[in-house]
């Protein structure tokens, strides 16, 4: 009995009333979900329609829901930190608790919020935009999603079972080594990112092949819509960046469970090796999340200015050059390592060089708007807000890239303000623009305008109120990750302002959730499939798209394919060509991706606690799933012509 008590007191996180509150709410929500599914007999529906699906549209929606939940979790972390920092000598959070929260905030926001959000956009948009019926590897796509999902669950479990990681989202050794981080928290960090990272790499391969090989006939690479181009560039970066992260995390894990000396201070280890490997992934990673946002802005600006995108070729060149230069900037995260003037100069100049293609893109957006007929819809609002915000964020980035000056800014709140400005002002605003833009395509209705504007202004004003003071706080000497400060520092007023801004953004998020719930019932329905007057192929099909997307694969003649088709149709004497429908080849649903991810979870959880009796069966289960899949030959089917015709005529398309 005593041994059980002993075990439970270390296994479950105890002692903090907030954690007990979380425990209770987790149990209540789980019970509510189980009750709902059983009461309304939804288990079969859940299994058939979602857990086993290989449809890119549904996988995209699942990514989206998961990303918004993670945005909530990461946002709560942010609010807790801002409460603690609102005034000097606050006693809201213990130092340990504060460490855990800034670690999970960063980890979740980058890896479990930004990544799934861009993958949601990839999945929802890319096949529709290039005129394909699915991605190249639908089964692998489901594997990717479930690996991300189980990775996210593993990390989120840490704060109630075993304890959260607490050495920062960058998890630098030696702090993250044994002796400084003994608990399972750090293992949770390593394994959850490893598991979801495998999924991210697979997604990169999947969409790269999809875009290279599955574009509609006539869609040459230089006629591909800009969002798909940005995904192409992003996927190449994922391919080259994620292996470095995988290696960094595995080596640190081997240090921790195998007693190795890669990054330890003893035995000849070198902690800087981890930091180099981490940022060889880490800097490209920020471009991985921003490039799709650039793609979204390009689509939105062109659609709502009623003009074709200005400087298409230079946009493509800018994307490609950012994706290349992005790999030569990683040392700017630690100029203070002391690599020497020549090395620092190289990386400083490479970093500054990124501003050139980025600047080209900004000017192209502005010139697209120039003399356009601009309509201020919600996607356009977010795009317009992005431009000044990103310009400031970019300028402070160039300030940080100046190596000698960086010795002063390094790890101060100036840096914090900078990267939040490019990540929120760039990535989050971009994804919101995409969300509002493609929402009707996903669900068949628009999101309410009035509530959307409330949310937009709360987010925007909140953003500047929160982060502008942090630039100043950085200059005043406030460093990142401190959890308490005294009155004598003079940081109190600005910190209070910053906290108010954080709350404004939080309210903005709540309004956004309310907007979604409200619009499910009252949102303007999209019956045409083309609610915005779009220019690319996804708007040529009904909203939401039927299972097979395109009854007949379109033939593309120019860049804005759907716009040209509409022009053609408006010509006098235009004769509608008869639709020629053939049986459609589709992949079958499969439960293997889900089970494989469950085994990853079991193996990962066992490895976190170094319970080999659990980790090894998990590993065997993973390989068993791979083997089972290899022996499956009956993996696809045909939708008969009659069924396609019935669906199309029900949608009014025949």
């Amino acid at each position, binding site marked *: 009995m005593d041994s059980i008590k002993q075990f439970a007191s270390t296994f479950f996180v105890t002692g903090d009333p907030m954690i007990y509150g979380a425990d209770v709410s987790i149990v209540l929500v789980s019970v509510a979900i189980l009750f709902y599914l059983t009461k309304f007999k939804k288990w079969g529906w859940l299994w058939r329609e979602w857990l086993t699906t290989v449809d890119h549209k549904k996988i995209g929606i699942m990514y989206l829901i998961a990303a918004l939940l993670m945005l909530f979790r990461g946002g709560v972390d942010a609010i807790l930190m801002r409460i603690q920092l609102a005034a000097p000598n606050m006693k809201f959070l213990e130092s340990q608790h504060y460490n855990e929260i800034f670690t999970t905030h960063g980890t979740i926001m980058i890896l479990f919020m930004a990544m799934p959000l861009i993958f949601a956009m990839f999945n929802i948009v890319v096949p529709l935009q290039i005129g394909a019926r699915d991605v*190249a*590897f639908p089964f*692998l796509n489901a594997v990717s999603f479930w690996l991300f999902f189980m990775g996210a669950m593993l990390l989120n479990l840490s704060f109630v079972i075993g304890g959260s990681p607490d050495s920062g989202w960058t998890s630098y050794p030696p702090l993250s080594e044994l002796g400084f981080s003994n608990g399972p928290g750090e293992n949770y960090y390593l394994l959850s990112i490893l598991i979801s990272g495998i999924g991210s*790499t697979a997604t*990169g*391969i*999947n969409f*790269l*092949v999809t875009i*290279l*090989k*599955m574009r509609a006939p006539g869609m040459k690479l230089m006629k591909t819509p800009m969002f798909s181009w940005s995904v192409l560039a992003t996927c190449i970066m994922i*391919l*080259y960046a*994620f*292996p*470095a992260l*995988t*290696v*960094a995390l595995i*080596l640190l894990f*081997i*240090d921790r469970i*195998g*007693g*190795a*000396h*890669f990054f*330890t201070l*003893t*035995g*000849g*280890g*070198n902690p800087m*090796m981890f930091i180099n*490997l981490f940022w*060889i992934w880490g800097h490209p990673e920020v471009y991985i999340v921003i490039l799709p946002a650039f793609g979204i802005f390009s689509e939105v600006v062109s659609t709502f200015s009623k003009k074709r995108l200005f400087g298409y070729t230079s946009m493509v060149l800018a994307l490609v050059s950012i994706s290349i230069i992005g790999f030569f900037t990683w040392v700017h995260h630690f100029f203070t390592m002391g690599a020497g003037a020549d090395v620092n100069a190289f990386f400083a100049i490479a970093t500054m060089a990124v501003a050139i293609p980025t600047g080209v893109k900004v000017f192209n957006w502005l010139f697209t708007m120039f003399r356009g007929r601009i309509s201020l819809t919600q996607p356009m609002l977010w795009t317009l807000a992005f431009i000044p915000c990103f310009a400031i964020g970019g300028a402070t980035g160039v300030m940080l890239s100046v190596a000698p000056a960086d010795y002063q800014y390094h790890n101060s709140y100036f840096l914090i303000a900078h990267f939040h400005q490019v990540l929120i002002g760039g990535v989050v605003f971009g994804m919101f623009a995409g969300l509002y833009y493609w929402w009707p395509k996903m669900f068949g209705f628009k999101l309410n305008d009035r509530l959307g504007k409330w949310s937009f202004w709360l987010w925007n004003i909140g953003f500047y109120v929160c982060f502008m003071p942090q630039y100043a706080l950085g200059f005043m000497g406030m460093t990142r990750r401190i959890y308490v400060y005294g009155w004598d520092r003079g940081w109190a007023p600005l910190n209070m302002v910053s906290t108010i801004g954080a709350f404004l953004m939080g309210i903005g998020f709540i309004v956004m959730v309310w907007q979604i719930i409200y619009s499910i019932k009252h949102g303007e329905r999209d019956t045409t499939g083309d609610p915005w007057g779009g220019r690319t192929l996804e708007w040529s099909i009904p909203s939401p798209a039927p299972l097979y997307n395109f009854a*007949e*694969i379109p033939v593309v003649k120019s860049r804005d394919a759907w716009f040209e088709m509409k022009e053609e149709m408006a010509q006098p004497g235009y004769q509608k060509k008869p639709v020629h429908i*053939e*049986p459609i*080849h589709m992949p079958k649903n499969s439960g293997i991706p889900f089970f494989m991810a469950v085994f990853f979870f079991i193996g990962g959880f066992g490895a976190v606690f170094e319970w080999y009796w659990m980790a090894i069966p998990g590993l065997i289960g993973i*390989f068993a799933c791979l*083997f089972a899949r*290899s*022996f499956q*030959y009956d993996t696809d089917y045909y939708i008969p012509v009659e069924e396609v015709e019935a669906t199309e005529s029900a949608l009014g398309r025949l």
Partner: protein
Amino acid sequence: MAQLAHDMKHGGHDAHAHDHGHHDQEGLKMLGFWFFLATDLLIFACLFATYIVLRTHVDGGPTGKELFEVKGFMTETFLLLTSSFTSGLATLEMRKGNVKGLIGWLIVTVLLGMGFLGFEITEFVQYAMDGATMSRSAFLSAFFTLVGTHGAHVTVGMFWIIGIMIQLSRRGITDVTQRKVMTSGLYWHFLDVVWVFLFTVVYLSGMVM
């Protein structure tokens, strides 16, 4: 090989190839596998970089020169390079449409792979018995991880090829099994190329340093 890829692209033997507007599934998978190999190559690149940084960090423990034995790693090299050759012979048999020859050479490939692994495991055990474990020094951590990752890849490859042999014996040479033989063959040759670098960077330069 190029001819084979061409055949696979335009092979009219299966039902799918006659449909218009549908993508050549096996060709997509080949391309995807090439990209996967690129990511795997980068994993090895990072491990090599780590090894090169840490190889002099012996912390007073044994150096490569003291540990490595020419006979052992030469045998491993010989076995693995030969297995790559037999894997190529298997592909040739597949081109001729000879299932038996194909499976036969694949069996030889797997046996050579097992021989390689046997010698590698013996080598590792020997080092560990001499007190040169991965927790002894940063050099040894990097050594065991780099060489061990390659060995783990070889192990996975062997199981994979065994799985494909079972499928070949059941289904013969089809578009799908052909593509599987091609991807696993690529993987096997890839591991061979990695070994050439291991041989050079770890063992050869370890002996002279």
